[in-house]
């Protein structure tokens, strides 16, 4: 890891540190906080899916674990919010390990792996909706007490600092992984698992470490969501919406790259907000536009735009 690699990350961190001081609009700040929460979840996915090549359709399982554990500890046991948040991350990592163990051990790959993770997330969702401890269908509400000690802040700007800080940490972690031995092994497994095995890489161990790390990061996003919105139910915590968000962002922004998930999250949410202004009196038109943009993004991926622009200029 050289200074050159860290510079963009520091730049990013500076931008988000300065943002609350420069931007007065709470509309924008709220937008940025939510986008960064999604980016964080996506960074988790990216570790496993982008670098590891194991596409998961069930990252909601980790998001929800982090969110619910954090919320339950605070609400039912009065645990300190920060400690609860950390526990949430740990629980999410555990869930990741278990799912990874079951799935990878059986040799599930590709689409089969993707769908089994989806199945796990759905099981958790149905259970969370029925169980007492999660509040069942009524959900769980964290008491609004905007105090830094409760990991709640009166200012949206402060939340942005926290979210930005967590995303920066995840960026650094991703970079570190990229440059590390584990990262190389992960990519080797992604490209050709059999060959990697033949070269002495323990593919199972590598994938397990990746999914555990991935789950922890996405779990952190879940915990942060809980602190920001203060209300969870089974659909919010374990619904397919977050699984889709977590995989869309890296794909749009560049899977297997450090900034991909963050870039993708900002683009997707930015476009979503922009299309909202197209909304007239007919509901749905704005989302149609969003869908069209999504397809166009595939045809002209953001990461290739600098190249495309260069080619166009040279014409």
């Amino acid at each position, binding site marked *: 890891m050289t200074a050159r690699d860290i510079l963009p990350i520091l730049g990013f961190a500076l931008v988000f540190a300065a943002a609350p001081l420069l931007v007065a*609009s*709470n509309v924008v700040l709220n937008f940025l906080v939510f986008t960064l929460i999604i980016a964080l979840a996506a960074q988790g996915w990216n570790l496993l899916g982008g670098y590891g090549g194991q596409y998961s359709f069930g990252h909601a399982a980790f998001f929800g674990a982090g969110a619910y554990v954090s919320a339950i500890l605070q609400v039912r046991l009065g645990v300190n919010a920060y400690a609860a948040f950390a526990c949430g991350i740990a629980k999410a990592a555990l869930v990741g390990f278990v799912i990874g163990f079951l799935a990878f051990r059986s040799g599930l790959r590709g689409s089969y792996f993707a769908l089994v993770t989806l199945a796990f997330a759905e099981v958790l969702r149905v259970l969370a909706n029925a169980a007492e401890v999660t509040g069942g269908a*009524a959900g769980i509400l964290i008491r609004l007490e905007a105090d830094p000690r409760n990991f709640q802040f009166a200012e949206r700007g402060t939340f942005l600092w926290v979210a930005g800080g967590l995303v920066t940490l995840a960026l650094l972690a991703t970079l570190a992984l990229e440059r590390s031995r584990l990262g190389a092994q992960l990519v080797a497994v992604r490209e050709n698992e059999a060959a990697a095995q033949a070269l002495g890489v323990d593919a199972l161990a590598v994938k397990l470490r990746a999914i555990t790390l991935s789950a922890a990061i996405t779990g952190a996003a879940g915990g942060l969501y809980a602190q920001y919105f*203060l209300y969870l139910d089974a659909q919010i915590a374990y619904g397919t919406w977050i699984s889709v968000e977590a995989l869309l962002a890296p794909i749009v922004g560049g899977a297997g790259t450090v900034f991909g998930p963050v870039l993708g999250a900002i683009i997707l949410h930015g476009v979503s907000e922009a299309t909202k202004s197209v909304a007239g009196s007919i509901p749905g038109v704005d989302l149609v536009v969003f869908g069209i943009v999504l397809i166009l993004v595939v045809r002209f991926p953001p990461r290739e735009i600098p190249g495309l622009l260069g080619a166009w200029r040279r014409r």
Partner: protein
Amino acid sequence: MAKFEIGRRGAMLATAGVLAAPGLARAQVPAVRLGILQPVTGALSQDGEYGRLGAELAINEINAGGGIRALGGARIEMVFGDARSNPEGGVAEVEKMQAEGVVAVVGGFASPICLAASQAAARYDLPYVVDVGVSDQIVSRGLANTFRFGPGFGVVTTTALDNLVALNDAAGKPARTVVIVHEDGLFGSGMARLLNAELPKRGFEVLETIAHPTPARDMNNVALRIRSLRPDLVIPSSYYAEFVLLSRTMQQQRIRPKGIYCVLNGAASNFRFVREFPEAANLVMDCNHWADPRKPKTQELRRQVEAQNRFWLYNIPLNYSAVMLVADALERAGRADRAALIQALAATDGAFTRHIMPYGPTRFVNGQNQAAVPVNTQVQNGDIKVIFPREFADAQPVFPVTG
């Protein structure tokens, strides 16, 4: 649409003002902005659309009648936000409404959206009036800005239970055995829990409680269990599509209990269901939000809605009334100031009669209207009648259902 009208009206008045100085002052009365938050895309789009309709009807009526008099005839300008059927969407829209300087926000529909949005509004002491969301948590967080004109979960379920017992007693206690069918969300599960605890105490026997997901792909097995258990009464609390499936399947399998007593059911008090499936809908009872049938305004609004080829649903009168509440509070507050509006809302009393809900005199405690209750309806002859309580009823209950 409102913007266009303001422009035109402003131009007219400005012209008049040139000719007569006093008119000039009136032309410059700024419009009062009201945020209307509804989920018009996504899973809740049907309810969101009808909620919006109710709000628009109220706003158009107020504006046509000269606006808010205490504010110099100021018109209400709607700032609409699509909550996109999730809490994050609701929060984002509230932030936008706040930035546009709305004096209050009305709507939300679903409890998770209402919880998040009202909380976001609380940061700015922005008054938030919930339209439907029944979760009791909404009004028990100690947020001074949050109000709910309609009833909460606790009131709805206990009223449903009390009314059921009263109806059963009045008919000579024909029903004793019950099967409960409920959607597995916040309302359905909570209601099932309450009924299971309370019904045995009132002389009923709950044979089975069946939870179903939303959406449900199939209700045949639910119908099968009802058929095999032969209960006197079926109590379904489901959303529109699932109840349509269930009631049609029950009709298909010739399952005819002595009564179908719905609670907060999405279809039983919905004219689309009644029109499309008259046979399945006939004599189905519901304990739900409903408009006061005695008020002439109710009939007038219903005609207006049906003239537009839409259906009359409870979302319309609830949102209409919520907007009227805000307008009434604005009149009393005398200025388009949020703090004053919150005070005026909290002080609302029986003098507020412009709503069309079957409630007694309005009285807010912790933001909850204590007079809010659901009423019992029954589908009779292709129409939805109120059968209980007596003072709002426009028809007699038909219970038990025989033949």
